[in-house]
C-alpha cells in the first residue's frame, strides 16, 4: 500500500479534501478591529445573555459550527465527525457544544494550534476514506481564558509588554469532497519543543521554536521554499514570537520573506492596547475562516500555509515553575 506520508512529518493527500464552508463568530472587540468586516457574525457583548463566560464560549463555538454547516447547505446529520477543541480545562467549551450538536465527537487539545490540528486530522479522516463530511471548530474567550490562566479580569495590575490578548471568537470549517473550492493538500504535524521559556506573559517566545521546527521540516519534506507560498500565516505568535521565528529560521538556513505573517498581528490595531498581539484558539481560526478563506476564494491567494502554534502548559505547571512546551501544526490550503 502506498503511504501518503512524505518525508519526516508530512502527509500529502491523494484526493485533497475541500473546505465546503467556513464560519466565524467573534466578540465586540474583535469586531471593531481591522478584520471586523471579514467575520460572519459579531456579538454585541462578551457574554451574549449566557450564564457564564464558559457557556458564552461554548455558544460561540456552537454558532460557528452550525453556521458552517448551514452555509454548506447540507443537513447537520450528514456530518460524520465533529472535531473540536478549546483552552478550558477538559475542553468543556467543545464538550458542551458537542452536547448540543450531538454528532460523533472527537475532542482535540493542541492549545492555540487546535484549528490547524483539527484541519489536518479531519483531512486525514476524509482522505483515508473514513468520513465524507468532517466539521472542525475551535473557540477561545478572553474572559474565560484570563481567569483560568492568569488573574481575575477586575484585578488592577499591569500586563507585560510581551503579553497577548486572548481572542473572543470561534471559527469553523466543514471539510468534504467537491470539485471546486479551496483544498487541503498537505499537512505537517509538529513535535513538542521546549526551549526553556517560563514566562507565561511571553507565550510567543515559548512557541516560536516549535513553529520554526515544523516549518523547517515542512519545507524539507515537500522540497519547497517559503517563496512557493503566497501566504505563510503562523497561528498566534504575536510580535515577539513572529520576530523570533524569523530569526530562528534564518539561523537554521531559511529566510521567511514578506509572505510570512502572524494571525495574532492581524486582529487588533495599535489603538486597542493589546500589547504583543492576539492569541487563543480562536485567533488563527477566525482569521482563517474569515479573511484567509475570502482571499483564497477570490483567487488573490493561491497557496497558503497555516501554522497553528500552541503553548502546552497549564496554570498548575506554571506555578510549579515548569517551562512552557510549544507545538506547531501546519496545513497547506490551495485555492
Amino acid at each position, binding site marked *: 500500500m502506498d503511504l501518503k506520508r512524505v518525508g519526516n512529518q508530512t502527509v500529502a493527500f491523494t484526493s485533497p479534501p475541500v473546505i465546503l464552508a467556513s464560519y466565524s463568530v467573534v466578540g465586540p472587540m474583535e469586531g471593531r478591529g481591522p478584520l471586523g468586516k471579514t467575520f460572519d457574525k459579531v456579538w454585541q457583548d*462578551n*457574554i451574549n445573555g449566557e450564564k457564564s*463566560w464558559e457557556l458564552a464560549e461554548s455558544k460561540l463555538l456552537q454558532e460557528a459550527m452550525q453556521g458552517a454547516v448551514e452555509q454548506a447547505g447540507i443537513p447537520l446529520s450528514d456530518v460524520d465527525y465533529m472535531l473540536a477543541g478549546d483552552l478550558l480545562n477538559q475542553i468543556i467549551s467543545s464538550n458542551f457544544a458537542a452536547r448540543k450538536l450531538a454528532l460523533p465527537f472527537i475532542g482535540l487539545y493542541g492549545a492555540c494550534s487546535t484549528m490547524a490540528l483539527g484541519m489536518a486530522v479531519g483531512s486525514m479522516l476524509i482522505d483515508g476514506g473514513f468520513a465524507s463530511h468532517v466539521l472542525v471548530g475551535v473557540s477561545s474567550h*478572553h*474572559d474565560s481564558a484570563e481567569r483560568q490562566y492568569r*488573574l*481575575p*479580569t*477586575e*484585578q488592577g*495590575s*499591569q500586563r*507585560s509588554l510581551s503579553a497577548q490578548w486572548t481572542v473572543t471568537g470561534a471559527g469553523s470549517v466543514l471539510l468534504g469532497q467537491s470539485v471546486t473550492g479551496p483544498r487541503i493538500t498537505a499537512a505537517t504535524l509538529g513535535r513538542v519543543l521546549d526551549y526553556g521559556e*517560563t*514566562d*507565561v*506573559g*511571553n507565550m510567543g517566545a515559548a512557541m516560536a521554536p516549535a513553529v520554526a521546527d515544523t516549518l523547517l521540516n515542512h519545507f524539507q519534506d515537500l522540497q519547497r521554499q517559503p517563496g512557493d507560498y503566497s501566504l505563510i500565516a503562523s497561528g498566534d505568535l504575536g510580535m515577539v514570537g513572529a520576530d523570533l521565528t524569523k530569526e530562528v529560521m534564518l539561523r537554521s538556513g531559511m529566510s521567511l520573506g514578506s509572505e510570512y505573517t502572524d494571525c495574532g498581528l492581524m486582529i487588533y490595531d495599535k489603538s486597542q492596547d493589546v500589547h504583543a498581539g492576539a492569541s487563543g484558539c480562536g485567533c488563527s481560526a477566525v482569521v482563517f475562516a474569515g479573511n484567509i478563506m475570502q482571499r483564497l476564494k477570490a483567487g488573490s491567494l493561491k497557496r497558503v500555509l497555516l501554522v497553528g502554534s500552541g503553548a502546552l502548559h497549564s496554570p498548575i505547571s*506554571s506555578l510549579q*515553575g515548569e517551562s512552557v512546551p510549544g507545538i506547531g501544526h501546519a496545513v497547506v490550503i490551495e485555492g
Partner: protein
Amino acid sequence: MFLFQMIIPAFLVGGVICVIGQLLMDLTKPSFTPAHVLVTFVTGGAILGALGWYKPLIEIGGAGASVPLSGFGYSLAKGAMDAVSREGLMGALSGGVAATAVGIAAAVLFGYLVSIAFNPKG
C-alpha cells in the same frame, strides 16, 4: 486648613513606597505577581515595625505610611508587641489580629457585599 494637614508628606511618602513596589514588580521575574508584592509589603512592614524603623515613617508621612499595606504589617507587629507588654506571652497571639480587626472585618464585609452586588465587567 486642618483638612489638608500632612497631605504633602502623605503624598510623598506614599508615592515613594509605591515606587518601591513598582520596582519590585518590574525588576524581578515575571512570576512575581501583585499577590507577591502584597505579601512582601505586609511582611516587610511587620519586620520594620518590630525593628522600630517604621514608626518614624508614620510620624513623618502619616497616611503615606499607614495606607500602604506595609502600614497594615506595622499595625500587626505593633499590636502584638503592645499586647505582650500588657498580657504577656498570650498577647503575641492575640495582639496583631486585635489591633487590625477593624481592617480585616471591613475587608471581609465590603468584599463580600460588593461581590454579591456586582457582576464582573471582563
